[in-house]
């Protein structure tokens, strides 16, 4: 890097946020974090809260690992990353239990499962270990948002067609499909609630994204 001071939001830095939303999306392109995309996308509310929690963890784990990057012994770097991620996840869990008890009840096991989210370790290995703290933070925001975006889209589709409702944090379930539809013979698709449907919805998103952006298609 040159010795000139780079502006905080230079074009290069902004790209760190925008590429994970599209061409380098952690779920649809890098196919990381699929596991939680299956588990928490039955309803919209937990998907939104989990997205925020994951973003918190990606940002701060990227920051901490990037600050420590020159001191971490190479042989135990994965363990160091894991300890940092696990500590952050426990912090999220404890804070939710103390200040957002209702939400923490709904998310229950899923908060703990953030530790196993491949995106976090993936970004630490691929980015934070080799970059300065500020770009690492931006990369964390970008990847957290890219992950959350897909999670929310999938949850939206699954909850809408699976139960006819949408649940939002702080508001609760809202019936979106009017009762008239049910009288006309429309039925909720129970398959939407089952895990395979999450994979199929993610698959459809990947398909749509690749057919719009030909560069993403491997030869």
């Amino acid at each position, binding site marked *: 890097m040159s010795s000139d001071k780079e502006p905080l939001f230079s074009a290069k830095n902004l790209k760190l946020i925008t590429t994970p939303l599209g061409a380098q999306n952690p779920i649809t392109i890098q196919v990381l974090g699929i596991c939680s995309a299956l588990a928490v996308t039955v309803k919209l509310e937990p998907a939104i809260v989990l997205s925020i929690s994951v973003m918190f963890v990606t940002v701060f784990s990227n920051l901490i690992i990037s600050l420590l990057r020159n001191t971490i012994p190479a042989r135990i770097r994965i363990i160091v990353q894991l300890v940092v991620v696990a500590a952050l996840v426990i912090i999220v869990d404890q804070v939710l239990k*103390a200040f957002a008890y209702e939400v923490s*009840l709904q998310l229950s096991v899923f908060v703990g499962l953030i530790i196993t989210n491949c995106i976090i370790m993936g970004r630490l290995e691929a980015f934070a270990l080799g970059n300065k703290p500020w770009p690492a933070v931006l990369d964390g925001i970008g990847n957290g948002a890219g992950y959350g975006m897909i999670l929310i889209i999938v949850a939206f589709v699954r909850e809408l067609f699976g139960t006819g409702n949408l649940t939002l944090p702080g508001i609760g379930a809202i019936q979106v499909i009017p009762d008239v539809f049910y009288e006309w013979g429309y039925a909720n698709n129970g398959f939407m609630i089952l895990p395979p449907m999450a994979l199929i919805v993610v698959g459809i998103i990947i398909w749509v994204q690749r057919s719009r952006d030909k560069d993403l298609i491997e030869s």
Partner: protein
Amino acid sequence: MDRQGNTYTFLYASIMVIVVAAILAFLAQSLKPLQDKNAAVAKKMDILKTIQIESTASDAEAKFEKYIGENAYVLNIDGQKQEGEAFTVDLAKEIKKDKADQAYPIYECQLDDGSKKYVIPVRGKGLWGPVWGYVSLNEDKNTVFGATFGHKGETPGLGAEITAENFQKQFAGKQLFDKNGAFASIAVVKQGQSAGDLHKVDGISGGTITSVGVSDMLQDCLSGYEKFLKN
């Protein structure tokens, strides 16, 4: 110091673990009072909900005091009052003991219209972890007034639906004892088989193990109150 050497690696790992452990221990300790209070308030809200009193996190304690207050006590298997604070009884530990040694907490509630309700806490096993709940009975100690359930980690959309209003409202009006006065409990059965039966409610399709868990929980926990309820 050699950054790749063994000494450095060991030192680094030890210091990191101690620092992280200290931070987490401090955090857990400082947040514990808040978390315990949240859990207690949530428990009071659940108990109030069974007797159809809506409460929020802010007014749950006042309402609990008003409708229940001191009228909570612990029973033994013979239905007699014994020492102990009903609210602090840990059912998770009690249900592991022998039936005869268990403490059976019960809450007596006086509603605005003067009627008296009994609230009994229950706890059992679901598919992934514990399930629990509260059953409220009318003054006849037989007819169910209301029920609420909670769970640790049942599958969302399937087993977790035991917390849904539609599942819980089925319990109102069901009875614990059959015509001959024998304890019959309330069974959670396959959908569509409960019509007209005073001792059965519809289960959740796709959540069979959780439904059976709720069924067993009611049978196991409520049967311990049999002597008290018959008096």
